């Protein structure tokens, strides 16, 4: 996952502070939505996925995004978000609540064949949860997914 993509695929909304969900250097979304929003309107229409079990939060974020000329689809939980992804939809950005019923917000794992310190730092700064070098075998994957101690294999 490139760092430019992982910068886009952020962010974890905490408990519903909707105006502060976007972090990182996304040029289209600096500043506060709703204020001088014309200056921040997306020139190329983006598609966002809004994942939150709270319909008030989804409605409000959807409206903020609409004002910025960003279309959005909604999901009530992580499972629905996964289903939408597997349905073939392609998103420019995902806003995902961390605590939800059925399935919580997704963990974002960065992988790369490079293990240069500066690159790893840049990757982590983009907001991923963890970084691992390739190749990923079943043992490492089990550790990542379930925290299983690899020495048990």
């Amino acid at each position, binding site marked *: 996952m490139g760092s430019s993509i992982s910068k886009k695929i952020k962010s974890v909304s905490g*408990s*519903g*502070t*909707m*105006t502060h969900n976007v972090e990182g250097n996304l040029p289209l979304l600096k500043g*506060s*939505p*709703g*204020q001088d929003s014309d200056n921040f309107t997306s020139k190329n229409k983006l598609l966002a996925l809004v994942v*939150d*079990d*709270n*319909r*008030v*939060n989804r*409605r*409000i974020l959807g*409206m*903020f995004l609409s*004002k910025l000329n960003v279309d959005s689809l909604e999901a009530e939980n992580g499972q629905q978000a996964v289903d939408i992804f597997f349905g073939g939809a392609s998103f420019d950005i995902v806003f995902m*609540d961390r*605590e939800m*019923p059925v399935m919580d917000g997704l963990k974002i794992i960065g992988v790369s064949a490079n293990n240069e310190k500066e690159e790893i730092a840049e990757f982590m700064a983009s907001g991923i949860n963890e970084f691992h070098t390739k190749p990923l075998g079943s043992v490492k994957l089990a550790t990542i997914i379930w925290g299983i101690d690899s020495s048990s294999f």
Partner: protein
Amino acid sequence: MATGGLKDQLDVLVNSMHREGVLDEQFRQLQMLQDSSNPGFVAEVIALFCEDSERILAELGKSLDQAVIDFPRVDAYVHQLKGSSSSVGAQHVKLACIQFRQFCEENDKEGCVRALHVVRNEYYNLRSKFEIMLQLEQRIQAYEAKLQK
């Protein structure tokens, strides 16, 4: 009454809610999202918020009435209410929910019962003001529609 007078009344009400801390800056952000293409946005959000809040408050009442309290479940409900109150700018409700979650973390039943009482009071105070606000908005919109004819 001319729309100017109604608009003044609405401004006075909303400003007083901000001054008292019942609403915070987030509500102003919502108002700015409303325009001619979405004239009912604020009313819609308020309606959703009130429906969800009352459902949650009812569930909280039931949950705290049990012999054995499921504190994680109670906390989950309060978390939801905190989230939506934060999103609409309902500051007092949000702050009451933060306190409520503290009692949930401490597994303090009495604290939770007291906190629910506070949250309910704050919510119903807010709801009554929202009702007045929406009535004023409806009257303003009705007058303006009439003037355009």
